[in-house]
């Protein structure tokens, strides 16, 4: 074995780490059986898509443009001879690159890749994680939900599934309509669930609090289920549509036994609308004291060229593996979690 120089063990001396990695703890966090289960899961997924004629693709992990979403922070690579033109962003998802493939007529495509999100660490979060992302031209979000359920059943075994609209779920759990309730009503409901202390924010903050504190615990009792048709303000990259007099984003989230596993869209294909949403994100970022991000002009050009009507979904593979193995802490399922990598 080659000894590791002491100076490289805990990173650069100018940036002391709050919790230095104990070098003695070099072993993986996962068991060998769990590593085999991961390999079997990957094989099952590749078989599933091969049988359905979906093409496996790869796109870059290091991208010249980041994303504007104010709730997701990328990790940025700044050092190296290849970075003369500027820093590169470790992808937070392969979405933009895959849409550029759809725009040249790739047809249905999927990818299994690493994605990175800064500051997300916990029992179900690791800053580096594995995503399965796929796109289906000619299918709306309800059609894609059915395919997501089929994939999950092929991985975890057959089981029933249900879908609830965002509105219906809030009405059931909180007896309030998330589209029409006054801000004060949302805050009052939040105050019954937790001490919100000094939280300040608009409707979306309070809706997110009610979702995480009341709706998600209820969804945890519904087995395999989807939440769909979100408020327009939370549409992200989904198309807007009218439902019962309200504008909704045709977006869905998959929950399995309360674990949020996937997020999908009936994809927005309008370049002008996409540009407006990027710019709105950047205004929000500035309001929150975050730096604005340059827009991904390559994606906008691809949408300008023409994106076929399609739905797409990103599914957290580590979480799916957690459900398949019964492991409750992602750090014990990854060969080397963030702390050990």
């Amino acid at each position, binding site marked *: 074995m080659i000894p590791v120089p002491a100076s490289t063990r805990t990173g650069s001396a100018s940036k002391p780490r*709050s919790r230095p990695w104990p070098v003695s703890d070099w072993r993986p966090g996962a068991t060998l059986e769990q590593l085999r289960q991961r390999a079997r899961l990957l094989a099952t997924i590749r078989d599933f898509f091969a049988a359905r004629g979906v093409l496996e693709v790869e796109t870059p992990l290091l991208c010249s443009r980041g994303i504007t*979403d104010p*709730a*997701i922070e990328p990790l940025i690579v700044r050092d190296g001879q290849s970075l003369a033109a500027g820093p590169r962003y470790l992808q937070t998802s392969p979405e933009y690159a895959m849409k550029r493939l759809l725009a040249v007529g790739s047809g249905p495509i999927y990818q299994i890749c690493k994605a990175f999100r800064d*500051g*997300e*660490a*916990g*029992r179900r*979060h690791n800053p580096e994680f594995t995503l399965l992302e796929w796109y289906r031209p000619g299918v709306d979000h309800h059609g894609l939900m059915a395919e997501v359920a089929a994939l999950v059943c092929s991985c975890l075994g057959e089981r029933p599934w249900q879908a609830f609209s965002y509105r219906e779920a809030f009405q059931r759990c909180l007896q309030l309509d998330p589209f029409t309730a006054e801000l004060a009503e949302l805050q009052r409901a*939040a105050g019954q669930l*937790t*001490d*919100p*202390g000094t*939280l300040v*924010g608009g409707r*979306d*903050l309070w809706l*997110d*609090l009610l*979702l*995480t*504190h009341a709706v*998600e615990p209820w969804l945890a009792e519904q087995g395999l289920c989807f939440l769909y048709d979100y408020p327009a303000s*939370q549409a*992200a990259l989904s198309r807007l549509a009218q439902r019962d007099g309200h504008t909704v984003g045709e977006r869905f*989230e998959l929950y399995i036994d309360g674990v*949020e596993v996937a*997020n999908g869209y009936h994809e927005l294909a309008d370049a002008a609308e996409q540009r407006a949403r990027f710019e709105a994100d950047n205004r929000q970022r500035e309001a929150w004291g975050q730096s604005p991000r340059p827009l991904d002009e390559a994606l906008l050009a691809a949408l300008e060229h023409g994106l076929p009507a399609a739905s797409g979904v990103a599914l957290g593979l580590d979480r799916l593996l957690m459900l398949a193995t019964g492991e409750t802490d992602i750090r014990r399922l990854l060969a080397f979690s963030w702390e050990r990598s």
Partner: protein
Amino acid sequence: MANFSTNEFRPGLKVMLDGDPCSILENEFVKPGKGQAFNRVRMRNLKTGRVWERTFKSGESLEGADVMDRTMEYLYTDGEFWYFMEPDTFEQHQADAKAVGDAYLWLKEQDSCEVTLYNGSPLSVAPANFVELEIVETDPGLKGDTAQGGSKPAKLSTGAVVKVPLFVTTGEVIRVDTRTGEYQNRVSK
């Protein structure tokens, strides 16, 4: 004191919240698929003892609290304050009735106990889990009545009243679990 971000909140960490020192009991990171991430934090207010759940935006931070737990020797009370001594430095601290709370029922001179200091002053006092105290008053014992499991109240030297078996008599020393206030056994003098 240093500031601690929500992702550094760990059980046992002491922070300042709304002017009071608090201890973190549990910290859960929750995030809807998109949107605002929160930390649901169970904490105990060390002044009032209240335990509750507060929600923070992930990334918010709180100032650390100057709170330390010290093992000290209980010296005496003058009726208004209770006096404790650090065994290594002989430094003495006086605690008021609010800090001592119900612990006075189990404090015997020269016993060790846990004193929580906040900015150098006693904030709370926890007696040892088991203490040995003398019975100063109880009904006369019934010889031979060891099997029936009946009980009677007994007043201890500190003023605490505990239930003891019928055969235990005044002047005897007994061992008590201070967490439950339950009699454990007689202690030979």
